[in-house]
């Protein structure tokens, strides 16, 4: 018999006990859930899963992405705002649910103060989108074309009470165009794009897509932003075209991570540091490849400022729509 066997085994046993028993009450002790507002098949859900996997490696506990869909993300935020504030529930918040929906419907059981910021994850710019055979190729050309039309523009908005609608209408007003808003489906893809293809709509607010499905059928004339965006660096911005809407980064479709208010500060600090490292790291960019450009990390303070500035910028536009009904 090998004399070294028994001490080796004992040593291994001791090591394994040490390894399996972390220091008492060290966060996290159990799996963490990210409540996510989109279904499992959505492209952004896959991005969130990747982020979750990378944070799992750093935290040593699995992070589960749990889709709670419905009502434009407000169901997910409601679930997040009412979850136990123990750091084991993170919610993926985004502008349309936390700011837009709340302005339209003050009865929603959450507001900006219901959450503590972890960090902003993504920013998707909204676009002016037309069918591929439209004569205009830039925002400037589109505005010139629109001014020659007799009837108001049939302008496809996504949901009736949505942030893309607010942003699109702000642009229409800054360009002094006569428009007829038509709510055309819940998302900014799908039915809005069909509307452009079959001629029901003249123009729609779109998003820069993560896939190339509609290539050759529609074209994005420009971004409704002040600054160019890495997702579509070649597109003209509304500001460059001479019709700035002046809402800065609040006009992006931003979304990030937050925890319910009341979560202990030390736990929040762990999460802010971990996700900050993941979101700024090169590993994430490599693994996302072409989709990496939607990652737009903002630290907790900047993220919280964005919540406030989005609310105050969008509030007058929401009031205008509610008044017009």
């Amino acid at each position, binding site marked *: 018999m090998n004399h070294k066997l028994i001490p080796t085994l004992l040593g291994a046993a001791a090591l394994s006990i040490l390894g399996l028993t972390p220091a008492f009450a060290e966060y996290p002790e159990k799996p963490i859930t990210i409540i996510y507002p*989109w*279904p*499992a*098949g*959505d492209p952004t*859900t896959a991005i969130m899963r990747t982020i979750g996997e990378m944070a799992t490696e750093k935290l040593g506990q699995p992070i589960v992405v749990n889709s*709670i*869909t*419905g*009502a434009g993300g*407000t*169901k997910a935020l*409601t*679930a997040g705002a009412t979850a136990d504030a123990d750091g084991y529930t993170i919610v993926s918040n985004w502008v349309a649910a936390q700011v837009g929906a709340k302005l*339209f*419907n003050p*009865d*929603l*059981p959450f507001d900006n103060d219901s959450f503590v910021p972890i960090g902003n994850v993504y920013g998707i710019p909204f676009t002016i989108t037309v069918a591929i055979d439209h004569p205009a190729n830039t925002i400037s050309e589109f505005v010139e074309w629109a001014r020659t039309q007799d*009837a*108001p523009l*049939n302008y496809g908005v996504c*949901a*009736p*009470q949505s942030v893309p609608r607010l942003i699109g209408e702000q642009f229409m007003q800054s360009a002094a165009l006569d428009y*007829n808003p*038509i*709510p*055309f489906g819940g998302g900014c*893809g*799908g*039915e809005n*794009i*069909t*509307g452009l*293809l*079959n*001629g*029901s*709509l003249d123009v729609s607010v779109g998003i820069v897509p993560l*896939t190339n*499905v*509609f290539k050759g059928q529609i074209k994005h004339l420009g971004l409704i932003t002040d600054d160019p965006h890495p997702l579509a660096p070649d597109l003209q911005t509304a500001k460059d075209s001479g019709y700035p809407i002046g809402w800065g980064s609040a006009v992006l479709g931003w979304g990030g991570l937050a925890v319910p208010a009341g979560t202990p500060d030390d736990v929040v600090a762990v999460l802010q540091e971990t996700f900050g490292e993941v979101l700024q790291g090169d590993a994430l960019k490599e693994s996302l490849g072409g989709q990496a450009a939607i990652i737009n990390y903002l630290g907790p303070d900047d993220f919280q400022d964005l919540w406030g500035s989005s609310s105050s910028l969008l509030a007058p536009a929401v009031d205008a729509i509610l008044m017009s*009904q």
Partner: protein
Amino acid sequence: MEFLWDAFAGFASATGYQQILALVIGLSVGIVVGALPGVGPLLGVVMAIPFTFYMDPITAMALLIGIYQGASYGGALSATVIGIPGTPMAAATMLDGYPMALAGRASEAVTLSTIGSAFGGVVSGILLILIAPELAAIALRFGPAETACFALLGLTTMGALSGGSPFKGWLMGFLGLFIATIGLDPVTGVQRFTFGSVYLDGGVTLIPLLVGLFSISEVMRQIENPVRASNVSMGLGASARAFGTVLTRGINYIRSSVTGVMVGVLPGVGGVTASFLSYRLALLFKKDSDPEFGKGNPDGVIAAETANSAVTGGALIPMLALSIPGDPIVAVLMGGLVLQGVQPGPQMFLENLHVVQGIFAVFILGAVLLLPLGLVFMRGIIGMLRLPLWGVMAGVLMVSIVGTYTVSREILDIYMLLFFGLVGYVLRKGDYPLAPLVVGFVLGPIFESNFRRTVLVSQGNLIDYLGTRPIALSVLALVALGILFAFYQLRSRPQPSRA
């Protein structure tokens, strides 16, 4: 045609072991729920929805389509062997299947049903693969006006769906339309009938409504008045003689398959009509050597069972290509796709072509697998008919409640489920049909949002605008015919009730 080859080429890539496993489980579960009186395909797919939540879209559809196909066939087993149709659409199968069984030809009758179901399924699958992509390509040019008219056409069938009084059918259809208006207005975003509840902002959701109406109410009915399946005869086997009928009665198989697909495409008509229509067609082509219909004529079994299975492929065509589900079962399948983030309709053929091809692949595969599964498990499934139904119902109740909660993790959904269970029970006690309610609930929002978009797009000149849309106008003409037919139905049957 090219698409057909693509679909076959897609079999290998679209269907891994997971999909085939889901399909086999779906078919087996489907055959059992179809055979058990009172459970049926709708209840089967409704209860499976929560399990699909964590699957990929193709696996999810494999499970649901398997149940749909299996249950469309399973009803024939109980109809033939014990003379109680497991599903309403197996009632036509019973007309000749049960007499055959009484005459000692049960094995032959059941084998004929199995072959007919597989045959009808495969033919309808091929037609689905041929027609759906073409229709989707045309539908890409459909605007809100055309979509609204198609939805309206579906709504005019509500009276025909009742089975009994057309008046009750319309009443239930309008109840469904009303329930669908709860929630945020699709154009203005104003809250409607929400009583200030944020929960109701998203509207009444499909799953609690369907599971409540169909599962919970069925459980309550069974507690009150259990169906007993006694004197189950055993000793069945596959009959070699039945296989010969594919050659000798081939025309009947083909005619019944095409009938089934055509009826399936029509919104709101469904398997019961298809099997009786096909049965009546078979009457016209009776062979002199056969026994009378109703006394064990094999052609009767073939016609009924082939047609009601062929309905499945036909019914998927408008759902996949136009996003308009024609009957409650297909509405649930559509709900399953939407849960996966895949919106059926013309866009799906561009955005999620692999899902479309996967659905086609599992559909054909399911129809083929039905034959061996049906024959191998036939004896065991008929044995299951002797299980105490109260045990089955306890399982149905548990799966319904747990499953509904799994989908949304919303406790209010369970209250909603129990509420609709009670509603469904009361309505069924009064002999009010539930299918039109579901059709109204599903098609109502499609009609409403597209109609209102049409009004907005026309910028106040609706009549002029419709004048430029020939397809919409021709569908409207069909709608007018449908309404005329509905009035004719109401007049020709002045007695509003049927026992």
